[in-house]
């Protein structure tokens, strides 16, 4: 049995660091882990996908259409764009943050603000975590990724790792407090108790 997680966001949102922390925790739990982070032009404000699979034995590192157990979306329309990768019965953990792409900014295309509602109607299991708002209130919107990591860990029920310690050792020293707080808040958003 393998679990497949697709993390999607916009270049600069920190999906790669999130996936890195997650994979380190999973390795320490003894899983075989493969993660794929195709980056190239996408650094420049394009869509960024990172994919992570874990289980007893993982072969292919990438996730095909209809194969992801969980989609973690850092931005609203990126959740929509990644939808074909979700397996029937899978889960979406998403922020409702909106980041306008260039075709939207220059008025060529419309931004579908209702995307979260549409996703909720279609996919039963959608958890919306206002991660960027939470992170902003805690002091820095940049901790949005760690907040979503907290939410994902809660959604995956991954016990047995000191995640907060792992977060603390993975982020810049000056940002440890805000990131650990963001992690806790994200976790709580999914598992209130």
């Amino acid at each position, binding site marked *: 049995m393998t679990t497949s997680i697709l993390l999607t966001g916009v270049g600069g949102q920190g999906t790669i660091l999130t996936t890195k922390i997650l994979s380190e925790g999973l390795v320490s739990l003894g899983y075989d882990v*493969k993660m*794929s982070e195709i980056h190239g032009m996408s650094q*420049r404000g394009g869509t960024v996908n990172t994919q992570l699979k874990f289980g007893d034995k993982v072969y292919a590192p*990438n996730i*095909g259409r209809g194969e992801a157990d969980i989609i973690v979306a850092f931005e609203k329309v990126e959740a929509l764009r990644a939808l074909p990768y*979700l397996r029937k019965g899978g889960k979406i953990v998403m922020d409702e943050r909106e980041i306008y792409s*260039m075709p939207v900014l220059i008025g060529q295309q419309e931004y579908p603000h209702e995307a979260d509602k549409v996703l909720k109607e279609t996919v039963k299991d959608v958890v919306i975590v206002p991660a960027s708002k939470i992170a902003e209130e805690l002091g820095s919107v940049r901790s949005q990724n760690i907040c979503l990591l907290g939410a994902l860990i809660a959604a995956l029920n991954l016990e047995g790792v000191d995640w907060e310690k792992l977060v603390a050792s993975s982020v810049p020293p000056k940002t440890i407090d805000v990131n650990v707080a963001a992690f806790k808040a994200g976790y709580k958003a999914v598992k209130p108790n």
Partner: protein
Amino acid sequence: MKRVIMSGDEAIARGAWEAGVTVAAAYPGTPSTEILENISLYKNEIYCQWANNEKVAAEIAIGASIGGSRALCAFKHVGMNVAADPIFTVGYTGVNGGLVFVSADDPGCHSSQNEQDNRLYAPHAKLLCLEPSDSQECKDFTVAAFELSERFDIPVLIRMTTRVCHSKTLVELGEREGAAVKKYESRPSKYAMLPAFARLRHVAVEQSLLDAEEYAYSSPLNRIEMGDRSVGIITSGICYQHAREAFGDSASYLKLSITHPVSGKLVKEFCAQVDKVYIIEEGEPYLENAVRALGIDCLGKEVITKQGELDAQIVRRAFGIGDEPEIYEVGIQAPARPPVLCAGCPHRGFYLAMKKYRDRIVPLGDIGCYSLGVNPPFNGFDTCICMGSGFSMTIGMAKALEMQGDKRKVFGILGDSTFFHSGITSLIDAIHAKANVCLCLLDNSITAMTGHQQNAGTGVDLMGNEAPQIDAVKLVLAAGLDEANLRVVDPIDLKAIGAAIADAIEANGTFVIVTKRPCALLKEVIRANAGAHCVVDPDKCVGCKSCMKVACPSLAFENKKAYIADVANCNACGLCQQMCKFNAITKVGGK
């Protein structure tokens, strides 16, 4: 044994270190760049360098190998085209210290201009070829490659693909074998490839390849995994993982890790044990042709696409196994999100200024961050072929336009790293040919597109040492450009750049515009602009949208007013401010 999770690129670097490599060189190129970046972590033991281009990098490695060091050179797939000239002949000379070339291919064009399959180079240039399928193999095969290179006196090509380079998987680490530098001996008959010697070396290398094929038969690198015998799959590299994922134990596998030379004996033995043979590979029918040449019937490209990257599902669909997965569908679509020039990018000013003159110019582009200017609203150039072509193609294009009475001026556009890579030879030709063109060097003081590597113009080398800074403007003048036809301008100064473009259009003979401003993402630039950003005064903003022509990702428009939507990334470059006739935009914060 310590197990860590690392990317294929990191694992190649680790393998090089374990194998006792002492010299490494490369020119950056996604997805290969991180190999040298990670080798530079071992800079006390490995001399490493960013070369100006892949040919130079290969030749640095060849020199080191013949001199007796174990040497590695890495490039992206198209980089191997640039390096092909020396590689084809070092295939004849063979090596002294082990010599390994790493090619990072990019099926799927994640960040490249084509999907070429560099396995085909191996038989053509007479190299051994190894194809790792995960990070563990990247490390282990690198160590093995140096041994094989020395044992058979042949350079080895390690052929990676984006998915192997950029996937992180578990690796058991080993220790460094110690740098065994062999003694250099002068041997012109082996290393000076004049015709008489080359003819003899050709004989020698053909024998070495036969010996290597014999070795490949029993090599532990190749692997047979028997499962159900109704189907036998021959595969290599990442496709082994896709095949495994798709077929599980319902098939048997011949996982070829040495894909040149392919051991015919091994293939025949495997095929004799299975009912039918499938070949699963990305790109060209490389293994398939090798299998067919043995007279064995098989199924491969007939059902599997040559285009793009494979995954388990494409494999399942091709061979008609399993059901199509069900997916969710919704009635709305996500708007496109193409990569764009960053907020505050210096290239933006150049394209914005050029827009006004666009109908009087035929601009030819090149590869770098500035390639992103091809998209609306800038529509900044018409062509993009390969590095350096942005300058050279202008010469031919100008002739072609002249012959059809097209009066437009041909502009060539490329960046500083691309200039040092190969633009410089094109520039010399343009000046020498008295080409009536304008060559634009967009100098942002870094090799940005591939993740900010140093280059000949930046004053720092890969190992972090200070290095002589090569002055591109002086080079241009030294090549003989009339100084009256040179403009050096700040690309964020719209008036200055506009004037330079207007002059270029009117000028006769070769004209050069050099724009100078460092990339907005450089640490020093970010530090210098810390806290600075622009604000739009909503009372002064009349909603004319003139500033939106800047197409800056930090700037948005809502309720008939412009506003800075992404304050954190606005660096107060001031382009939008120059566009506003109503003084609604001002710079705040910062030093």
